[in-house]
């Protein structure tokens, strides 16, 4: 097997048997399976603004739960992905091995991504089966591919951001602060950032449902991995949900989020001392 993949799987397997996974796995199952089951229940009453009438719309709304749980999982595994080894001195041993730093960086990234990505994808497929059981129909193949692909990208982006942040941290405190801070910024306080920016640019932010604000928020969302994830999914949702932003910008932003943090992370890793 390719040494990068062999190392990544070895790392992922080690993380899969960790205490963190024991905490994360039930959380993922509860969030993803619970969301798919509950949202696809014909008798369930959803808040007025949320509609989940088709299998893909159920997946779309369920993606909110992935944003909360799976990304948190990546934070759990990634916040000390490099800093822990650096603080303990193990990183010095790893970096002195005759493996190209770029390859080592990629394997460590994949080692952080895989233990969250694999259960998330498996649970999502199980969730799709639950949707079929509840609604009697499958989401389209393209819908499933987009959902799983976008979820993979989202977790990849988070893993890259976490590993980059971890490479900056030189003690456990800053490691936790950077890791949780990045997650909180995109998951919890991004709406606040959007509102602040809207106010600064003269867009009416007193009513977040007005068209001007929605258009502005879609643009600001291009700067957030969560936002791009939702914009990608919105491309397959009906016109009533879709926001007025060109798919070109969404795809460009997705490519940017894939390439730029990865480039920054590898560059940082190559320059890093022990």
């Amino acid at each position, binding site marked *: 097997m390719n040494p990068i993949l062999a190392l990544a799987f070895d790392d992922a397997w080690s993380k899969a048997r960790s205490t963190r996974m024991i905490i994360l796995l039930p959380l993922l199952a509860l969030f993803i399976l619970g969301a798919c089951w509950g949202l696809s229940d014909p008798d369930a009453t959803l808040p007025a603004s949320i509609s989940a009438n088709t299998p893909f719309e159920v997946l779309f709304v369920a993606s909110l739960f992935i944003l909360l749980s799976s990304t948190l999982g990546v934070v759990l595994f990634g916040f000390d992905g490099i800093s822990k080894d650096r603080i303990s001195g193990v990183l010095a*041993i790893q970096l*002195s091995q*005759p493996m190209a730093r770029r390859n080592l960086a990629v394997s460590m990234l994949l080692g952080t991504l895989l233990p969250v990505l694999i259960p998330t994808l498996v649970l999502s497929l199980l969730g799709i089966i639950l949707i079929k059981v509840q609604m009697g129909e499958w989401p389209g193949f393209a819908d499933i591919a987009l959902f799983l692909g976008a979820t993979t990208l989202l977790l990849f982006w988070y893993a890259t951001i976490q590993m980059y942040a971890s490479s900056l941290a030189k003690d456990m405190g800053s490691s936790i602060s950077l890791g949780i801070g990045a997650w909180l910024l995109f998951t919890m306080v991004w709406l606040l950032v959007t509102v602040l920016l809207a106010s600064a640019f003269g867009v009416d932010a007193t009513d977040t449902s007005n068209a001007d604000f929605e258009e502005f928020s879609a643009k600001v969302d291009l700067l957030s991995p969560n936002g791009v994830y939702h914009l990608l999914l919105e491309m397959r949702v009906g016109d009533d949900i879709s926001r007025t932003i060109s798919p070109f910008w969404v795809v460009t932003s997705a490519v940017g989020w894939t390439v730029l943090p990865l480039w920054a992370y590898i560059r940082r890793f190559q320059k890093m001392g022990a």
Partner: protein
Amino acid sequence: MPTGNHFSLFHIRTWPDLNISLIPPNSLPIPKNPQPFSDIMTEAHLRIETLSFRHQIPAPTIRNPTKKRLGAGLHNISFDLPKGSITGLVGPNGAGKTTLLHILSGLISPDSGSIEIANEKFRDLKKQDAGRNKIGLMPDTVRWQGNSTPKQVLHRLSLMNNSKVGDLLELVGLSSRADEALDRLSTGMGQRLSLATALLGEPEILLFDEPFTGLDPVAQKALKQLTRELADRGTTILISSHLLNELESLVDRVILLHHGQVVIEGEIRAIKRNLKLDKILLLKGEKGNPLPLITEKVINSSINGNWSISVENEDGWSRKRLTKLVQKLSEKGCTPYHVEVKTTDLSDILEATTGIDGMDLSEHAMVPLSKMEVEEE
């Protein structure tokens, strides 16, 4: 390093506290055409040429938040290590020992200079994987933690090293703890694991940073024995340590670093002879004044009822010479009660060359400006 055949002269040796084999028979590879030891010792295996490095320390200002200033570092370090030699890297705190080891193991890039390993020149081992393949690093006190086991750690590193773990855990006396969680390893066990990681891939050059830290006396002895046997097999070993007594009984040569410069290098005996560290006699006594009776050079004296003097003799202090002096002093009414030919160790060499006395690590200590030349014996 060639593999295949094995030495037969290594016997089972036991690590007494664990009662397990330290060097299993036929476990270590033998070169296909082994060189005589005398030839091996004269061949430069690791050659460092004018290696320089300065740490960059963040010094942000309002105008330039990313501004950095140059900190301590290494200045034009040059030395050769013969193949199969054990060299001690000594020096006070902040001398640059760990920085040098980090450059040699490819953790940081030097600003200038080159590293030559077995006639192959490398500019920057951080970027040259082939060079790192020849070097094994045992860093200073690694805190192994987590639920992984030593066996898993070595397996993981072997994937990076493209090598096989083999019986390394047995070699370092950890086979009985191979499947134990890292969290349960003692500091000494952790050191043994660090040693095993350094030996992975059978490197030609071994770099040990404070290897004796945390090891009990038995384990220290075993480590020294293992180090000597690896060196006898042609592995070149550079050991940085503060435990000077431990180092002195192990190394063939020392390199003394101070303020990022090589102050002195060579065989310990040659250095001691050159620094006149084996020629001092300490005499203590009562009654009389011994000073007029002593024809040798008096370095230090204190006469105040009881007396104490340090005397230097270029030719050293033989038993006959000592007896004669003591008899002379006794006959003239001075009563010596303490006679000691001062034995010196590496700390004396440190003190003699750097000017650092005891715990004085202030900036006022003498800064060496040039390397002292020492004749090889």
